[in-house]
């Protein structure tokens, strides 16, 4: 396998993009990434999107996007793995370049979420449609049941849980692409409307339009295009049970553990070597469970550690310097790619005020459903 580099990135602002449709958003991000990487022609295209069919009534995104970024003729496919579609697309792009099949590969993610009214229904299609969604459960509901089980088992308090979105909003203040770049306090979280008890609105990542794209090439060719590039050092992916009720321990997301182990093994590093991590905080409880599965905290201790400041600048590890899904926004298919973009900025020292000092190795973790799929990347600055 060849080593693979990321040589350019581009994304739209995340938010309510009323003026842009799904192809407009993708084209903006893709053309920015190509310009950033100084490439005019790509060899292959991968598009991550969770549910363009239900959100935008548009399937066949590979062809559509290749057409609208002036690259008709290249092999182009869509990758779907619910909310981890973007990260899984990056993994496919990585395999494509690493295998020697293609050199210049564009990987993007996109989701147009604000065009439908019943987004709750669309997201619930990532659960077991016949045995979970049929019985009325929503995605916030699934994570609320994880939160309830975790709080009961480990004694995590409602106030401690609230520290996750408070931290992430604080990080987002310095992210110009973030949907909600402002701070919130404990009162804001605890007074926000109840979505799925015990989770309130401020525990939940928002509905977001957006697209994010990156350009991959063989590491040994990276310098031909740019001096700002990072190496993909480890890739790990795993699946878990589709239904939350089939997780033996309802306070765990085993697919995250497996994907993390695979990425650590491939990269030859341990959690102590990671300087920052972008995790999939679709709900506040998710960040806690994921940080434990990735080995940053012991099981049952992640919540208290993050509440004590161990997940921010000056703590054990900076978690979600971008603001995370909660504050940066969560256009589901784009999220996994946007996490990679944040890591790219951090490792090329372009993260501005949110720069993690001396960041050399970063990790991204992107997850689908209630832990039904997960993909982890470990990136290294050059």
């Amino acid at each position: 396998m060849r080593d693979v580099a990321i040589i350019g990135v581009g994304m739209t602002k995340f938010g309510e993009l009323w003026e842009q449709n799904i192809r407009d958003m993708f084209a903006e991000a893709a053309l920015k990434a190509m310009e950033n990487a100084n490439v005019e022609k790509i060899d292959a295209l991968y598009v991550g999107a969770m549910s363009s069919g239900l959100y935008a009534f548009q399937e066949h995104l590979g062809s559509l996007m290749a057409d609208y970024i002036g690259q008709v003729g290249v092999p182009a496919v869509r990758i779907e793995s619910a909310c981890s579609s973007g990260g899984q697309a990056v993994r496919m792009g990585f395999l494509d370049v690493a295998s020697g099949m293609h050199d210049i590969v564009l990987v993007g993610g996109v989701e147009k979420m604000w065009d439908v009214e019943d987004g709750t229904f669309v997201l619930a299609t990532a659960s077991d449609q016949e045995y979970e969604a049929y019985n009325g459960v929503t995605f916030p509901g699934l994570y609320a049941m994880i939160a309830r089980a975790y709080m009961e088992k480990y004694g995590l308090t409602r106030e401690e849980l609230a520290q996750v979105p408070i931290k992430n909003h604080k990080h987002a203040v310095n992210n110009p692409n973030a949907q909600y770049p402002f701070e919130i306090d404990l009162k804001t979280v605890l007074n926000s409307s109840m979505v799925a008890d015990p989770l309130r609105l401020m525990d939940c990542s928002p509905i977001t339009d957006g697209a994010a794209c990156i350009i991959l090439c063989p590491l040994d060719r990276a310098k031909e295009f740019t001096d700002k590039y990072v190496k993909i050092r480890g890739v790990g992916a795993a699946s878990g049970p589709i239904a939350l009720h089939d997780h033996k321990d309802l306070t765990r997301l085993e697919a995250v553990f497996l994907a993390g182990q695979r990425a650590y093994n491939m990269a030859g590093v341990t959690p102590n070597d990671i300087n920052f991590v972008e995790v999939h905080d679709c709900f506040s409880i998710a960040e806690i469970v994921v940080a434990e599965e990735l080995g940053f905290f012991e099981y049952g201790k992640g919540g208290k550690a993050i509440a004590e400041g161990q997940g921010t600048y000056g703590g054990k590890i900076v978690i979600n310097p971008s603001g995370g899904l909660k504050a940066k926004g969560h256009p589901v298919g784009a999220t996994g790619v946007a996490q990679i973009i944040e890591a790219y900025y951090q490792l090329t020292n372009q993260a501005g005020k949110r720069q993690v000092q001396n960041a050399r190795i970063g990790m991204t973790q992107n997850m689908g459903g209630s832990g039904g799929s997960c993909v982890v990347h470990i990136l290294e600055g050059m």
Partner: protein
Amino acid sequence: MANSQRYTREIPHRYRLEAQKFPSGFVSLPRRLVDPISGKKEFEKIKLAGFGTILTYTIIHVASDHFKFQTPFAVAIIETDEGARLTAMITDTKFEDIKIGAKVELVFRKIMEEGASGIINYGYKAKVIV
């Protein structure tokens, strides 16, 4: 939401709680060809008696449109006495009686309607035994 075709296929599991017990002890309510624990393909057909325990739960305040007029309602993950895990709405129960560890009985109820002219979807819900 389920149209007639999809709905009819799941009737044995939803109406009668017909399940499969695999050699590892894993019990699956949906049809499966393979035991997710042991990988073995042999199983015994069983019928769940309809009693179980709440492992975790939530009270849903924001639902998808099909359940919009039922909010707030509780949903729980239940382990039946046979060891099958399932997700079910809780009915005819005061919220304060819903607790992790509470015993429930499964009852046959209307789950949702496909609008005013579509089919009516039935299935199991859980009722806390007070």
